[in-house]
C-alpha cells in the first residue's frame, strides 16, 4: 500500500446522505477477479447518462471545478450496505484518497484504511461549514495533514480530527496489515493450541 502523504487537493462535494455501496459501485461491475480498473465505474448510475458512456452533467462529480479532486466531502452514513471492497477500490482508482463525512458504515470504514484512503469523521456543524465553503467556492483546495491530524481550508474552516493510532500509523507507513499480524505468529499459534484444547469439536 502506498504511504499517505500530506497533500493539498481540490475538495469535491456530494451533498447526499446514506450513499450505499451499490451506488458507489453497482453490482454489474463486481464480476472481475482483479483489484484494479474500477474507477471508471465509480457512481456509475448517477455519473453517466442512459448510454452508460457520456457524462451526466447534473452529477456533482462531473463539474469541471471538481476534476482532479482527491478529497471527497459527503453526507452522513457514507458507504452503507454491501461489504464489497470494490467500493473503496473504485474510489481510490478514481483518484480520491480522503473522505470527509460525519459517519461511515463500519465495514466500509475499515475497507478504506486497507486501501490507503483516509476517512475523516467530523461533527454535523463542521460538515455543514465545509459544504457551505465548497458551495461558495467550488474548486477550493484543502490541505490534509494526517501526521498532524489537521485539515486546513482557504476560508478558515480547518479542524483537527481524531483517528485510531494504529490506522494512522499503517496509513502513514503504507504498511501491510497481514505482515504486521504475522509478527504475532507465536501468540497466534499459542492461542490456537489452547483453543483446540478448549473446543476440540471445532477440529473434529
Amino acid at each position, binding site marked *: 500500500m502506498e504511504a499517505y502523504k500530506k497533500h493539498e487537493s481540490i475538495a469535491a462535494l456530494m451533498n447526499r*446522505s*446514506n450513499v*450505499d455501496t*451499490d*451506488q458507489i459501485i*453497482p*453490482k*454489474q461491475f*463486481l*464480476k*472481475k*477477479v*482483479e*483489484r484494479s480498473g474500477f474507477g471508471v465505474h465509480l457512481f456509475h*448510475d448517477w455519473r453517466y447518462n442512459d448510454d452508460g458512456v457520456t457524462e451526466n452533467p447534473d452529477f456533482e462529480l462531473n463539474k469541471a471545478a471538481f476534476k482532479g479532486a482527491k478529497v471527497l466531502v459527503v*453526507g*452522513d*452514513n457514507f458507504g*452503507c*450496505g*454491501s*461489504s*464489497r*471492497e470494490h467500493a*473503496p477500490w473504485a474510489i481510490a482508482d478514481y483518484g480520491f484518497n480522503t473522505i470527509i463525512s460525519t*459517519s*461511515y*458504515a*463500519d*465495514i466500509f470504514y*475499515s*475497507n478504506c484504511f*486497507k*486501501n490507503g484512503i483516509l476517512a475523516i469523521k467530523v461533527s454535523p456543524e463542521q460538515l455543514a461549514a465545509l459544504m457551505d465553503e465548497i458551495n461558495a467556492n467550488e474548486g477550493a483546495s484543502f490541505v490534509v495533514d494526517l501526521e498532524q491530524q489537521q485539515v486546513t481550508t482557504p476560508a478558515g474552516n480547518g479542524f483537527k480530527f481524531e483517528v*485510531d*493510532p*494504529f490506522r494512522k*500509523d499503517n496509513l502513514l507507513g503504507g504498511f*501491510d*496489515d*497481514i505482515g*504486521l*499480524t*504475522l*509478527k*504475532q505468529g507465536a*501468540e*497466534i499459534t499459542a*492461542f*490456537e493450541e489452547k*483453543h483446540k484444547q*478448549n*473446543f*476440540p*469439536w*471445532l*477440529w*473434529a
Partner: protein
Amino acid sequence: MKKTMYDKIWDAHFVCQADGQAPLLYVDRHLMHEVTSPQAFEGLRNANRKVRNPHSILATMDHCVPTKNRDLPIADPIARKQIETMAENCAENGLNLYDMESPDNGVIHVVVPEHGFVHPGMVVVCGDSHTATHGAFGALAFGIGTSEVEHVMATQTLPQQKSKTMLVKVEGTLSKHCTAKDIALAIIGVTGTAGGTGYVMEYAGNAIEALSMEGRMTVCNMAIEAGARAGMIAPDQKTFDFIEGKEFAPKGEQWDQAVSYWKSIVSDEGAEYDTVLTLKAEDISPQVTWGTSPEQVVGVNEVVPAPASFTDAGKSLACEGALKYMDLEANTKMTDINIDYVFLGSCTNGRIEDFRDAAQMAKGTTVAQGVTAIAVPGSFHVKIQAEKEGLDKIFIDAGWEWREPGCSMCLAMNGDELKDGQRCASTSNRNFEGRQGKGGRTHLVSPAMAAAAAAAGHFVDISKIG
C-alpha cells in the same frame, strides 16, 4: 463483572494486542463466495502466503449463478471467469466448495446452517455483509472486506476494535401473518440504517424466543441494514436441536461438552448494554418499504409519507428523492401500489419456512395479469424439501416460475433483474436505487406479503385475511 454474550465470545477469541495495534481476534469459521474472494487469493499468492486453516473455510457459488438452464455454460464471460476462478482457488488450497453442480449448492448463508458448520460461541466471518445471519445461533458473525478475507486466510485472525452493545427486546406475541421479516423491518424503521453503526445487537424477548431458527436467521440477517456490525440471539434448545446430527455438528461425547459450553455463553442476568431498545410485537403490522433505504418503511395499512412529515431535514430530503425515484405520490395508500414483479428468495427469506409461508398464501390463487413472480429457493436442499411437500406445484399452478437456487434478484448479478421502471415486491434485504436492476423499484416485504401481492397485483393488508 456481568458479561453480555458478545463480551464472552470476544474474550474467548482475544489473541493478543501488540503495542500501537488493534486487538487480534481469532476466527473459527470463514465463509466464502465467488464475488469477494478472488482478489484475496491473488493477494495471498503474490505474497507467497498459504491458507492457514483450510478446514475453517466453507465456500459456495451463489451471486453469479443462473437460476434457470443451469446445464448450459454461463453466458456472461466475466461471470463465468469468476466462477471458474473460485473453483481453481478452492482446489489449489484444498477448500470445501459447494460448486454449481453440488447437491449442497446454494446461497452461502442458507447452506452453512444446513450443514451445522456454525455453532454457538464461534467467531464467523465472510466477505459478505449478511454474515450476521449466523448470529441466530449465538455466534459473533460479521461481514468483512476482501483485504480482510485475505488477512483471515493468512493469519486466522483479524485486527478488531470492540463494538458497543445494543439490546433489542421484542416482547409479546406477533399478530397473525406477521413474521420475523416484519420484526426486522420494524426494528430498522426505529433505528434507521445508521442507528446500529458501531454496535453489535443482541435480539431478545419472548417474541424472538418464539421464532424458529429460520425466523431468527431472518432477523439477524438484517442487522446490517440497521448498520450494526453483527446481530445475535442467545442459543437455546431450539438452537441445539437444529444443529444436532448435522454434518459438522459435534458428535458423541463432544456433543455434550459443546452443549454445556454453549449454555454458558448467554448473557449474564443483569449484564449491561450501551443501549436498550424495546418493541412490542403486537404493534408490528405487516411491513412494506416505500423508499430506497430499508429504514423507509411503514405498515401495509399506512400511506406513503410526505417529505414534510419528517422533522429531520436530511430525512425529509431523502424522502423527496426516494419518492421521485420510486415514482410515488405522498399519502398514497400502500395497498394502492401496483407491482410488476415478485421475488421470493435470498439469504433473508430463502429458507423452507419462507416457502411454506408464501405457498400458504399462494395456494389456489393466480398471479395477477402482467405480474411476473419467481420463487428462488436458497439452496438445493430447500428446493428438494419444498418439492417433497408439494410447494413447487402450488407456485407453478398459481403461475409462478420455480427456479434453481442462488442469490438471483436480491442483487441481480446473475441476469435475473428488473427492467427500468418495473416495481417489485421482494423478500430480499435492500431496496437501494438500482439494486434489482437499473431503474428498478424495490419494496421489501415478507414472503406471505409477497405471495399476496403476486395474486392481487398490488400490496394487500394480509392481517385482514383469516
